[in-house]
């Protein structure tokens, strides 16, 4: 395994909660190179040959195992597009931890675009955690443009947790999902932007099979002069259930555009969207101040709770 420097280790901790080499299967990518890789009896990680990226094959019936594929970048000016494909066998039940941390102290932009495709077999269940984090004081931007495609077979279930709390200057996230009968998708997105950051998140979920269901919930905070756009579209093509929710706190001169979209192409499709944008209520601040917090501490508590 390639040795990671202190900054790379710190990024690894931020995006994947890793203090050391994880148990189970993993691939650690540092400055566009593999810093360590391990397959297990049930999970095989193979590098792609034509483009940059990995093929991750999880055998049917694999239970209680995990895959970590974190990416860290500390070299200013690095730009990369990485294609990772996950093939999850029937009845498997695994946790996949991705995530990307960029530290840019230079003047050139650093950019990582991760294209992740998930082929989820019948009755399989995955929990996917993706954290994005940026640091560094350089003028160069930290840019992340993830694309996530999810293809779910009958009765499969996918839980996705997408977190971007700090330091990413520009992000365009696109997620598309296709669900067969009885498949279930749950997305929890948490986002905070500050400074002049810009974050765009687009979801398109096709509920194609009877009994398919999706629940896409985004909670976000826009501070300073930052801009966010949340665009979530559910397409019901069968007797299905879908729910999207965008709940945002706006502060300072932040701006948020929520574009919920529902398309029902079947009379038994039940689709719901909710969207709410507002500043922190004065009464909430006063309540916490009567408990001894300053206005600023109260604000932090409210935001931390909201994004927890």
């Amino acid at each position, binding site marked *: 395994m390639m040795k990671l420097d202190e900054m790379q280790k710190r990024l690894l901790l931020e995006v994947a909660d890793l203090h050391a080499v994880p148990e189970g299967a993993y691939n650690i990518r540092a400055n566009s190179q593999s810093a360590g890789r391990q397959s297990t009896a049930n999970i095989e990680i193979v590098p792609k040959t034509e483009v940059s990226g990995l093929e991750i094959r999880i055998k049917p019936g694999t239970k209680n195992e995990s895959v970590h594929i974190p990416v860290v970048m500390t070299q200013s000016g690095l730009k990369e597009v990485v294609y990772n494909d996950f093939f999850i066998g029937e009845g498997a039940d695994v946790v996949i931890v991705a995530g990307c941390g960029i530290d840019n102290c230079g003047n050139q932009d650093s950019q990582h675009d991760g294209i992740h495709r998930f082929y989820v077999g019948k009755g399989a269940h995955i929990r996917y955690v993706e954290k994005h984090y940026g640091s560094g004081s350089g003028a160069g931007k930290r840019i992340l443009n993830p694309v996530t495609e999810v293809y779910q077979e009958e009765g499969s279930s996918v839980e996705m947790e997408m977190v971007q709390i700090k330091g990413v200057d520009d992000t365009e996230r696109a997620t598309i999902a296709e669900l067969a009968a009885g498949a279930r998708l749950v997305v929890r997105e948490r986002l905070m932007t500050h400074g002049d950051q810009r974050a765009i998140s687009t979801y398109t979920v096709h509920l194609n099979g009877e009994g398919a269901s999706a629940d896409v919930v985004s*909670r976000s905070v826009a501070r300073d002069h930052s801009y966010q756009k949340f665009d979530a579209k559910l397409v019901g093509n069968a007797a299905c259930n879908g729910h999207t929710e965008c*709940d945002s706190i706006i502060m300072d001169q932040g701006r948020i555009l929520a574009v919920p979209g529902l398309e029902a192409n079947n009379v038994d499709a039940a689709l719901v969207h909710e969207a709410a944008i507002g500043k922190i*209520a004065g*009464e*909430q601040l*006063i*309540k*916490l*101040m*009567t*408990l*001894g*917090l*300053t*206005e600023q501490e109260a604000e932090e*508590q*409210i935001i*931390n*709770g*909201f*994004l*927890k």
Partner: protein
Amino acid sequence: MLELRNVSFQVDADGQDKEIIRDISLKLPEGRLTVITGPNGGGKSTLARLIAGIEKPTDGQIFFRGEDITSWGVTERARAGIAFAFQQPVRFKGLQVLDLIRIASGRQVSVSEACSYLSRVGLCARDYIGREINASLSGGELKRIEIATVLARGAALTVFDEPEAGIDLWSFQNLIQVFTDMRERMKERSIIIISHQERILNTADEIIVLRDGRVAAQGSKEDVLPGLIGTTSAIGTCRALDSESGGIVE
């Protein structure tokens, strides 16, 4: 403990100055339970908010433990030992009951200690400690959680603004028990309750009647309460519950 000297409070109502509190002077000694009553619109809740620092008097001074706190903000007063229970508790998306109790107590209290505050207000702690303080809680549940957070503060002076509002009969019995307990446990501490509930008035050492922003009467429970029975300043439990559904006429 707490002294108000010539306190007045005006608001701008449609371009006209409206005086809510008119030149009130009061002294509340340490270790007493004072209930402030009076007809609706008499200024009771405003007085409570003036004490907590949520509103600032337009005239006069407020002293707490001998210090002039008139210019102090909400946070400073809270840190000096003033706790305030809201008439309509606030909801927070994401914050859990345990978080709020920890903030209130000012330290990382253990889960079992946090649970003990919930038990004191009649909530099964195990079911509530991890709950978000959001719209999934009923008004009565929120109210009891509000009171639990105030108990966790253990403040020198606790002000309850209409603690019975929005609470059901069973919770109401429990509420009386909470005040009796507080008295037992914290003999040197002071409690002010804004209420026109006869049973809450019965727990008082001292009663103050506010009418039209002025003190209409002040004295021991024995002296003041008999004169209030049957008026809107001392409502019986059943009538009070009727009034929740609009059944009482002022």
